[in-house]
């Protein structure tokens, strides 16, 4: 465990573990947090994992932890690290098994009063339309070339197939498609695991939530994004399902066998990596891009399913417009300034959201507490490789949350707040109890006060739909 004495205060919201802390560190490690958050962060292995990230070849400036950081495997969740494109590495463990897990927000033209007495119907309609739960298949079962075109075309391919609107694509990070994707580099096993999972939510912390805009902090930004008070919105949180998990598993296995050849000695085998420019590094980059495209296609098909449910409930004229779609487990090639010079970097975000200036940043809180829409700021480019937090961040283990939470009581508490819950598994629900998460207001407060992103709007939940 990293002792508190190893941390140096750089500003009220940023602390640094200097390079001198451990001889194998190539750069310092920085964490965004308030003093009280730091106390909690020090209780698990987050910072030890962050220090491990700081040892990876080709890392530039510093390894970063966002305020929602918690222990993961390899990288901590809430971790950001950037590597020189020519001399640095790419690490599947720095992206995670759920490649391009992310969040999408849809906005209606209705105010919440219009839903009065209909929340139960909405919850049931979305639950029926969007398959959820462990390993659940969906409406499409893709084979061979059909699946390959989705892996290479992402959300754009779904538009071609009739599951989207032109306007959607402009409002997805990277246009919902990474061009580097090569379907032939995704194993048959990965394709078999995911071929029927397009348009499905999965289990765990994934959800669809109907929310309303409860507060606006920046009127001009809210108007620019099309947000208004009491507006009904729908948030989607899911990723690349079994296909992405298997791409990560395959790549970590392969890279672990090549470490000696690369001359890498790593503090944790989960950090298995390859030089970005090596054949192994390029193969993973192209397979990861394909899995990322699958995730964007997945969120696009779920959007179509929700729009279908919406039309049945409210009539054909009631549309749902896409506000934005962000990835929070991904590597991207981006140009950032390092030492006064623009450099192409392989930016790894594991449980962290891109936050470029003016870009909507979507931060879901824990179940029942609601979400934030932020807008990225210039400061993010200077300080955090254009990155922000990705959620509230867990603070309690799943096993403890199951033990300490009574499903009936949790449901009653949510009902008392006027929130409808449609969930497939009561145990799954207890693991996601709000008490198992940090306070999203505090997490977003750090991001906002440190200048990474500004608060635009707060959303509160009306209906939670989960596997």
């Amino acid at each position, binding site marked *: 465990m990293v002792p508190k004495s190893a941390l140096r205060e750089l500003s009220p919201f940023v602390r640094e573990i200097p390079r001198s802390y451990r001889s194998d560190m190539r750069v310092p490690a920085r964490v965004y947090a308030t003093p009280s958050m730091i106390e909690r962060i020090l209780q698990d292995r987050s910072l030890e994992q962050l220090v491990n990230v700081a040892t990876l070849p080709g890392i530039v400036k510093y390894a970063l932890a966002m305020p929602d950081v918690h222990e993961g495997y390899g990288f901590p969740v809430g971790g950001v690290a950037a590597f020189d494109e020519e001399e640095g590495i790419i690490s599947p463990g720095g992206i995670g098994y759920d490649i391009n897990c992310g969040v999408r927000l849809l906005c209606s033209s209705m105010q919440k009063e219009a839903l009065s007495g209909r929340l139960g119907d909405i919850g049931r309609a979305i639950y029926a339309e969007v398959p959820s739960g462990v390993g659940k298949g969906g409406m499409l079962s893709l084979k061979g070339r059909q699946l390959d075109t989705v892996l290479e075309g992402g959300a754009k391919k779904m538009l071609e197939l009739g599951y989207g609107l032109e306007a959607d694509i402009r409002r997805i990070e990277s246009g919902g498609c990474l061009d580097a994707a090569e379907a032939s580099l995704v194993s048959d096993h990965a394709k078999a695991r995911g071929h029927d999972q397009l348009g499905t939510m999965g289990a765990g912390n994934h959800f669809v939530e109907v929310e309303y805009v409860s507060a606006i902090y920046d009127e001009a930004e809210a108007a620019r994004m099309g947000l208004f008070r009491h507006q009904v919105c729908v948030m989607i949180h899911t990723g690349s399902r079994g296909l992405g998990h298997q791409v990560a598993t395959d790549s970590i296995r392969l890279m672990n066998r090549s470490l000696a050849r690369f001359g890498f000695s790593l503090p944790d085998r989960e950090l298995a990596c390859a030089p970005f420019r090596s054949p192994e590094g390029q193969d993973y980059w192209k397979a990861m891009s394909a899995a990322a495209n699958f995730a964007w296609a997945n969120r696009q098909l779920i959007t179509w399913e929700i729009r279908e449910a919406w039309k049945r409930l409210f009539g054909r004229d009631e549309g749902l417009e896409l506000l934005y779609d962000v990835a929070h487990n991904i590597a991207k090639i981006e140009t950032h300034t390092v030492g006064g010079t623009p450099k192409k970097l392989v930016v790894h975000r594991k449980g962290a959201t891109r936050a470029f200036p003016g870009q909507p940043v979507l931060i879901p809180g824990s179940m029942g507490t609601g979400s934030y829409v932020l807008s990225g700021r210039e400061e993010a480019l200077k300080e955090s490789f254009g990155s922000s937090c990705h959620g509230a961040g867990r603070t309690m283990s799943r096993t403890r949350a199951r033990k300490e939470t009574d499903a009936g009581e949790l449901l009653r508490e949510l009902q008392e707040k006027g929130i409808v819950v449609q969930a497939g598994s009561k*145990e799954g629900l207890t693991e996601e109890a709000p008490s198992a998460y940090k306070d999203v207001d505090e997490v977003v407060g750090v991001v906002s006060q440190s200048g990474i992103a500004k608060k635009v709007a707060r959303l509160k939940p009306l209906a939670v739909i989960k596997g």
Partner: protein
Amino acid sequence: MPYEILEHTADVRVHVHAASLVELFSDAVQAMNEILDPTLPEQAKVVTAEISLEAPDVTALLIDFLNDVLLQTQLQRTTFRDIALHTFTDTSLRATLSGQRFASLGRDIKAVTWHEAEIRRNRNREWKTVIVFDI
């Protein structure tokens, strides 16, 4: 119990220990099955699968093996409770898995991670390792 489920903030951390390596591998599969929490119908179809693996060391062999069992579990919608190891060395194995089709799983496992995995022998001559499952 041949394994204990320990605290981990986001995922599931398991400590597995056994008198022999063969038992350690089998116990790790049982721990994974417990986490997956399957619902088995009364009369479920029996399914078998073959796994053949080579790995650079015994820890890699375990993690690769568990990931292959997980893959078969998900592809065949089957809980594999019986593991017959036909050949087993520190760096290779050949196994037949058999089990029953499940109706549903209570929990998803995305992958078996390498984080903290290291097979060692303790003072009681028991084999042990920690395994973190990504949930």
